[in-house]
């Protein structure tokens, strides 16, 4: 791998992933062009890029989802490639097609592969063709408009068995997903799931899948080139989730034997090869209590959690994506990483720092960032999308940063996680940090006892918050103003977020004053 695969790249995304891709561009000596909505005109990804193009108002449907506007921006700026990141247009085959039709390289799998695997039902059929077990469920989409449809769905549901999940055929990230315990909940779940799926993906097709429980969520990172070579670069355990959205990911998956790991990687490679995978994708599986793997879906894009695989494999996956998109064969480094993947020699964990309230079922908590002090030191990487003073808009995903830690084994990575999470200081918005701090001190988690039920069964956020609340009240009483310093005269300064060392009662965030906070 030598030289820049492209001269100029347009990044069709925002937030931490756009920044991550800007960095890869600059590492490879390429120019990075950002796009932004009105909510992001001075966002960090815009500041970091070499050029930026406005693509519309704040709502995603009028900006980051505007395929036509983004392709026009790529043409106008002379971009040689478009990187879609994750979310937004990343898995829209029509977007990839439009980019390619404009004579620009799309950094991701080809449109046919995206279409085939993006349809979760088609992906299930591909898996069955190549002998990869799938979660029991329906193989065709359900319509939910008329009475006859409901009768058909009822029949299907009986065959699948309860509890089951209604899932969006075009879906991902838990959107459109509904859990159904009894038949009488089915109709409502189909309707609301389909409506949410239609709103999120423009396609309300849903299907049914048996719920595998207890289970771990384990996924395999794949890379493929245009010669038809597909390799696995290790797996990630992403079992710590809430509402089917990941909170913590680690690599390797704890407790797998070398042969289990090898078989899992091989199954994922078969799937990728059968779907004609080029570039990067991830095959997701459920790992049951009986140590059997069931295929879930393939994500034909860069994952949020790709960084843990980078730390363990030593690869820069985004850089690999650019080289692959330029038509180069899989690099020597990628092949070497694949050959080591079944016997990993270090451990990495990622914590998603989101603007959410973990005491209120992870409700969104947008607002303006006050203090923003990142951990650092050996084995610590932070991929952030905000800085002090930045607004976290309610219009987009609440993920604001990813803390990644790396150690020679899981115990070392966990110890480092405790240290790094304690260093992490965010003011102004509630984040998922208290959840992570409790998790890395939990005996079961430390023992590698993972399950997608962990959050529901082990996490009592309200109790954890209450304990800290009492301490906060008492501390506030001690940190009281000086004599003769009436509250009315409190000076408004910006020093607080920068650690000025001045009296904290006088230092203050002017910008914070006009904001309203979620309760």
């Amino acid at each position, binding site marked *: 791998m030598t030289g820049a695969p492209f001269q100029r790249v347009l990044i069709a995304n925002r937030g931490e992933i756009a920044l991550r891709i800007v960095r890869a561009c600059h590492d490879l000596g390429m120019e990075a062009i950002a796009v932004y909505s009105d909510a992001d005109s001075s966002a960090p990804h815009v500041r970091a890029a070499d050029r930026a193009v406005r693509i519309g108002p704040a709502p995603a449907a009028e900006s980051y989802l505007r395929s036509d506007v983004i392709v026009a921006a790529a043409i106008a700026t002379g971009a040689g490639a478009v990187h879609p990141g994750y979310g937004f247009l990343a898995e829209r085959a029509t977007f990839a097609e439009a980019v390619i039709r404009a004579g620009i390289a799309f950094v991701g799998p080809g449109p046919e592969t995206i279409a085939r695997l993006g349809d979760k039902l088609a992906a299930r059929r591909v898996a069955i063709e190549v002998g990869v077990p799938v979660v029991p469920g329906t193989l065709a989409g359900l319509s939910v408009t008329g009475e006859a449809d409901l009768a058909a769905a009822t029949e299907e549901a009986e065959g699948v068995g309860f509890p089951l999940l209604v899932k969006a055929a075009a879906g991902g990230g838990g959107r459109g997903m509904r859990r159904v315990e009894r038949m009488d909940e089915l109709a409502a779940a189909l309707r609301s799931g389909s409506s949410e799926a239609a709103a999120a993906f423009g396609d309300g097709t849903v299907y049914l899948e048996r719920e595998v429980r207890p289970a771990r969520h384990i996924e395999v990172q794949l890379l493929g080139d245009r010669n038809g070579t597909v390799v696995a670069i290790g797996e990630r355990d992403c079992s710590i989730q809430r509402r089917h959205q990941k909170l913590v990911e680690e690599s390797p998956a704890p407790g797998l034997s070398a042969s289990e790991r090898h078989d899992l990687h091989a199954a994922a490679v078969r799937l990728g090869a059968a779907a004609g995978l080029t570039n990067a994708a991830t095959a997701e599986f459920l790992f049951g209590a009986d140590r059997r793997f069931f295929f879930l879906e393939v994500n034909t894009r860069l994952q949020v959690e790709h960084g843990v695989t980078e730390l363990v494999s030593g690869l820069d996956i985004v850089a690999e994506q650019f080289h692959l998109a330029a038509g180069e064969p899989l690099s020597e480094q990628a092949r070497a990483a694949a050959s080591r993947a079944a016997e990993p020699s270090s451990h990495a964990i990622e914590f998603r720092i989101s603007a959410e309230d973990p005491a209120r079922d992870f409700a969104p908590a947008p607002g303006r960032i006050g203090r923003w002090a990142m951990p650092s030191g050996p084995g610590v990487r932070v991929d952030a999308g905000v800085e002090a003073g930045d607004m976290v808009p309610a219009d987009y995903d609440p993920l604001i940063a990813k803390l990644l830690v790396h150690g020679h084994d899981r115990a070392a990575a966990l110890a480092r996680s405790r240290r790094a999470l304690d260093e992490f200081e965010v*003011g102004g918005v509630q984040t998922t940090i208290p959840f992570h701090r409790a998790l890395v001190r939990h005996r079961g988690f430390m023992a590698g006892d993972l399950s997608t039920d962990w959050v529901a069964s082990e996490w009592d956020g309200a109790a954890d918050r209450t304990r800290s609340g009492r301490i906060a009240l008492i501390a506030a009483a001690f940190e009281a103003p000086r004599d003769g310093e009436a509250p009315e005269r*409190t000076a408004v300064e910006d020093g607080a977020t920068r650690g000025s060392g001045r009296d904290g009662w006088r230092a203050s965030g002017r910008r914070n004053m006009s904001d309203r906070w979620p309760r």
Partner: protein
Amino acid sequence: MSSSWLPDGRTDAVRVRFARDATASGLTVEANAPDGLAIVDGASLRVGYRRLDGIHGLIEIDGSPARVLFGALRGRSNDGVLVREVDVNGWRFEVEVESAARAALRDRARRDDDGLVAGGTREIRAVIPGRLVRVVVAPGDAVIIGQPLVVLEAMKMQNEVRATGDGVIERVLVSVGENVEVGDLLVILS
């Protein structure tokens, strides 16, 4: 360290409570009682507090240490209450601090106010900011506790706002497409 802003410099108890949380009664704290003790709601606690840089502090309450992070301070000049962001273990709180004597006066005033409000109605307010994507009920509808009233979309998730009790919809104050903020009135139930 004195904990008072009273004009004569006299040490006095302070009242601390969570901001915008009408249900929390808060604590009365006399920070510098003799012998390294603090009086918290009348009970003696051994509390050590060390201010580090005006942003960070170390507190030890009956032997348990914790790090405290202080954020922006906002004064509310009309009623003399300080509001301060306090972070413990990653949890973010907004704490109101005022002299205990003043807090007692305010509490009394608030109780008197409440007495003037006619009972029987219930206000449903937004607890997250978002865009209203659906209104499920109309004035005159009878609803039962837990029944969805409106759907708010925030950060791509649809959140149902439900009735907090049985009743009849008196008014719907929002319409589809509208952006609402935390605390905005959505529906009135009677």
